[in-house]
């Protein structure tokens, strides 16, 4: 099927051999989750202790890996999944889906210095809402989990799937935002001067600060501000730990020895534009990017028309061959059949040619340093292990056994 890995494929193989973190980013509907799973599988085959983490609220990864469901716990992909497909992995594969609420609770457990702080935080209504379903806390918790997995020693490669484009950027910025948010000076602003016995245990601000705070109270409601202040107060003791981790995640994401970003996209113009945008965002943040995986690429770009000058794909000999081969069928229907097939085929070819052009444009945009892998378009959704292995064949240029 393939003639050994090309340059991009060889590079991807090196990435899964020596990096600690691969982050898959891209717009929605381009097979990002499937690609992440396929990368994780290959890493396990090559001998890594790999884990695939999805933070996409959609539960697709489980299906792809043949698991009933994925939860916040790390689940091992059974060895039999590999061996049934005739593969002997040298390493191991786990998978999980990020559950924001549970991860947040775990973090509170871990960083709380004492039982009192812990129950104060876990009982705060603002905390309960924040930790539940809202997208912003999703991002914070993704970095938390990433840090946790990266430092646990249980895995030597984390493959991270991210939500569609817009939120992936939130995700990249989340750790920085969290640091800023939790800046002690800022939180101090909300808490100072803290005096026991005042309203709700804290008196907020003085001077101009009091004015702004009072105005905020008018706009957002005093209740809201009180709850937020309580939340900060309860969090005060946890700040140092949070900040430290946020900084470390931010450094990990920028570390070229440890991390590689992979932009997953499809040849359609909107997806390509977003891939470029994302590439630029990575460059701007000094994050190690420059790798693209283009999914759903048409396979018929090379097809040539029959050399008979009539613009048809099948030559007269080939049409005759079909007629003879279908000799038992009603012959009157055959020319129409051939015509419909050719019409469809010419559209398919045109789409494939467009795909190739889009990929060439991407290459010239991203420059010679950038690498581009392609995966041909598949009619059926991939949600079995065999299908994921076939994708590995395209990603890594390996013969599928």
């Amino acid at each position, binding site marked *: 099927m393939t003639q050994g890995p090309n340059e991009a494929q060889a590079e991807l193989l090196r990435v899964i051999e020596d990096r600690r973190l691969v982050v898959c980013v891209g717009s*929605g509907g381009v097979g990002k989750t499937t690609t992440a799973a396929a990368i994780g599988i290959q890493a396990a085959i090559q001998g890594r202790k790999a884990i695939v983490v999805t933070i996409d609220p959609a539960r697709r990864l489980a299906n792809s890996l043949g698991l009933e469901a994925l939860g916040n716990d790390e689940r091992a992909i059974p060895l039999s999944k590999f061996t049934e497909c005739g593969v002997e992995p040298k390493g191991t594969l786990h998978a999980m889906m990020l559950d924001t609420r549970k991860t947040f609770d775990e973090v509170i457990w871990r960083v709380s210095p004492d039982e009192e702080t812990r129950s104060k935080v876990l009982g705060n209504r603002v905390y309960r809402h924040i930790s539940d379903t809202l997208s912003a806390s999703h991002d914070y918790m993704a970095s938390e989990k990433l840090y946790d997995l990266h430092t646990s020693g249980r895995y030597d490669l984390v493959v991270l799937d991210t939500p569609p484009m817009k939120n992936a950027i939130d995700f990249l910025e989340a750790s920085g935002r969290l640091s800023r*948010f939790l800046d002690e000076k800022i939180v101090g602003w909300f808490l100072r001067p803290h005096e026991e016995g005042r309203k709700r245990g804290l008196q907020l601000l003085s001077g101009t600060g009091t004015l702004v705070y009072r105005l905020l109270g008018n706009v957002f*409601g*005093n209740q809201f501000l009180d709850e937020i202040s309580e939340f900060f107060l309860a969090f005060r003791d946890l700040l140092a730990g949070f900040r430290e981790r946020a900084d470390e995640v931010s450094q990990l994401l920028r570390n070229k020895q440890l991390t590689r970003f992979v932009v997953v996209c499809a040849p359609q113009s*909107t997806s390509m534009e977003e891939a470029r945008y994302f590439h630029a965002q990575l460059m701007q943040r000094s994050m190690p990017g420059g790798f693209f995986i283009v999914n759903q690429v048409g396979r018929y770009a090379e097809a040539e028309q029959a050399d008979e000058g009539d613009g048809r794909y099948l030559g007269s000999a080939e049409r005759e061959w079909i007629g003879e081969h*279908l000799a038992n069928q009603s012959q009157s229907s055959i020319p129409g059949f051939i015509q419909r097939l050719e019409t469809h085929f010419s559209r398919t070819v045109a789409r494939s040619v467009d795909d190739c052009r889009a990929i060439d444009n991407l290459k010239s945009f991203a420059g010679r340093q950038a690498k581009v892998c392609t995966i041909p378009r598949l*009619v059926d959704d991939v949600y079995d292990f065999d299908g994921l292995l076939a994708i590995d064949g395209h990603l890594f240029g390996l013969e599928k056994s």
Partner: protein
Amino acid sequence: MDLSMRRLYFVTGKGGTGKTAVCVGLARALARRGRRVLLLEVDAPRPNIPSYFGGESSYEPRVLAPRIEGANIDFYSALRSYVESVVPVKSIVRLILRNKVVRIFLSATPGARELVVLSRIWEHSFEPRWDHIVVDLPASGHAVALFRCPFLAQQTFDRGPLRKRAAEISERFTDPEVASLLFCALPGEMPINETLETRAQILRMGLPPVGGVLLNRYPDERLTSGDEELLEMLHSAGADLPSRVREVVEAGREMRREQGLADEGLERLNGAFGAENVEVLPLLPGTHAQVADAFSLMLAEGMR
């Protein structure tokens, strides 16, 4: 489906299902029928709608085409609108918005963003200068989070203007005479699963009323069932097939398979939404703007 019956159309769907093209198509269809339309994007870091019409995106509605205006509701501008609507004094509004602590506090407070953005859509929904508002929502999971915000806010805040606004938003967006949520779907099995899951989540919340679904990129080049039989006979020749014939036959069989999947998907959508609430949009060649134009003709057809 007659998509001219509601004042407010929210459109969501999994990423890559063609939400924006459908929104633009719907806005153009309504404009064809003489309606005045506002086309909104929600806190888009890179607004897509301008690429269909040319020009830049802005927070204040701007004319995109005859009878169509567009805007991107970004968080900070929406925040300004919200603060202005509550605080009448301009200098105080400035004081609040310029405060560094306030900005960081708000950008990092989960939920504040969503509520303030919804509040702007809510304000627009009362303005008589438009007959319809079409809202290009974020992808399904985040759209659900967006609509959950008014509920969360009402639970979190016992009083205060934010709670009041959340209640007003809920009331307006729950009204089936006013608002309708449309889904964009693609024919694959997983995209259909996700559409049905999101629909169930929205129905549980009761906000906003579920209108219908648009099944996009439906393959409409039909081979007959007789063709399929002939294809299989050719395919069974295996290695004997001349190479070019094999390519054409392979592509033909793929198309049959695709049609089969699409038909299954359509059937499942019909079952869940009711066939009268399902609109099929074909797989079309051309640029995204051309595709949206073609959609507008099809959607206008269904409007009284």
